[in-house]
């Protein structure tokens, strides 16, 4: 699991990598959680909240962006940050997963949206799954 935050003029550009496609989704959730509440997901193993999410989309890349958008929106409504993922089902067009996190009084960063810009899930030369995600903040 690799999470890197790269330079971007106005927003946040996150590059992620994982051995498996399921791992890539889990990495993305953790990376987003660490933006919403700086470093919290790295520091915590025990979570007080969980939520089951089903998302459908066009392909792996759109599915990841749409799924993260769902995690983000539900997090805002429930004042929660989600860090960990247990994936029940993952295909190119559907994910069913349980996200685990915790309640927060305030976020450190307000992500307006998870954008499709530059997102492209592919297997790199090291045979690991990778993509870049730009968050509009």
């Amino acid at each position, binding site marked *: 699991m690799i999470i890197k*935050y790269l*330079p*971007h*003029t*106005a*927003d*946040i550009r996150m590059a992620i990598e994982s051995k498996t496609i399921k791992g890539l989704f889990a990495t993305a959730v953790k990376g987003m959680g660490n933006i919403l509440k700086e470093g919290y997901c790295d520091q915590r193993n025990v979570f007080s909240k969980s939520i089951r999410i089903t998302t459908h*989309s*066009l392909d792996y*890349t*759109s599915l990841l962006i*749409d799924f993260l*958008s769902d995690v983000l*929106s539900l997090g*805002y*409504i429930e*004042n929660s940050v989600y860090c960990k993922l247990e994936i029940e089902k993952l295909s190119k067009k559907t994910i069913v997963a349980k996200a685990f996190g915790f309640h927060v009084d*305030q*976020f*450190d*960063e*307000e992500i*307006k*949206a*998870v*954008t*499709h*810009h*530059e*997102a492209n899930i592919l297997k790199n030369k090291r045979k690991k799954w990778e993509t870049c995600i*730009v968050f*509009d*903040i």
Partner: protein
Amino acid sequence: MRKVQKEHINKITDYLWEIPQSFRQDMKVPARILAFETLLDDIIEDRSLNQLVNVATLPGIKKASFVMPDVHEGYGFPIGGVAATSYPHGAISPGGIGYDINCGVRLLVSQIQIEDIKPQLENLSKELYKQIPSGMGKGGQIRLTPSDMEEVLVKGAEWAIENGYGIKEDLYNIESNGKLDSADPSLVSDMAKKRGANQLGTIGSGNHFVEVDFVEEIYDKHIAEVYGLKKNQVVVLIHTGSRGLGHQVATDHIRIIMSAMSKYNIKVPDRELACVPFDSREGQNYFKAMCAAANYAWCNREVISWEVRNAWENIFGNKGGALNVLYDVAHNIAKIETHTIENTDQMVIVHRKGATRAFGPKSKELPKKYNEVGQPIIIPGSMGTCSYVLAGTSKSHETAFGSCCHGAGRRLSRRAAKKKVNAPALKEQLREKGIYVEAGSFKGIAEEAPIAYKDVNMVVETVSNSGIAKKIAKLIPVAVIKG
């Protein structure tokens, strides 16, 4: 795709540059840049011009894709981008409006002079911070019931006035009178409505703010008089948008539009440029939902004005006088407008993302009192520098569909700004300069430090010298409230 370099750009005038249609096979029109050459050298550094070229590929795009001098890299469209597509079959792209639908600025003018309130400025900044909820995901004092929400989405700023949060006269000085008639709340998801239920009257975070300024310089006495601006007068600038509701509307409809594109045989070079014909079911649904979110944003800025007026009264009592709306203008929106293209008047769908409408004199949509002088354009700079009030001109119609810049434009990433700026020291330096900053975090101050932005003077000089706007007044900040 090859990156746009300076040798790919042709000079049209000192302020207007063009990437010809031949640059890339899929371009349907040229791409034009409004900038001084020195600004252009900066602009080339990031990927904004490649994004501008991508915009030039949109179905039905007319004349050219444009960027203003405050352009910087966005997603899909660059920030500072303008594009008009043919009505009604041309494309509508949520990426040409942005996630913060109807993010915009409003300027309130007071009746008092800066010298009269200097001793109370610190108290005023603290009171404004107390009255106006700001920060990450913060809720406000108003909790909208589902039926209230329907009304806000239909009535916009009018809802605030009907419910005691505003003044009727304000409506005359808001773009589109603070309400777009095409709004349809049934096309706004429950998730979006839930996110917006407690956010009316909140500014949020990022580059949003409420700022107290004074008029340092008047450039055009006559127009300043019409606008009600005088030297040393205190004014209040509000910059925010449709909050979580608008973000969710954009997210929801981009998802729908991406799935629908294949049905219309549309392919785009960047997923964030996802678009459909305006008159398709998906295009109409997005437009009507976008109008509802725009109405929420105008209502939000009206409620924030009420909070500012409360703070004003709490500090100055009866001596504070009225705070009147000079103008309220959107800079993230799509509108149906008529423009002259190839010598004929044509209806087009104008997308403005980080660009301000800048209508010249005698435009039908302007309030009567501004009809002879043109629309007020409000250009916020960064805290610690200055902001401007400009006036729209007829040349803005000829050049870029009646559009102008929207601010200074970022030049440093937030991360780079945080690395370079010592926020507590900056807060102190600003205080020594007579600028009181109240913010939710030092991180927010560092990210929005003046060093993170382009020189707003240079941006304004470009639009002024190019003739698409006229300089009217310069504003200097004295108190800044940030999320």
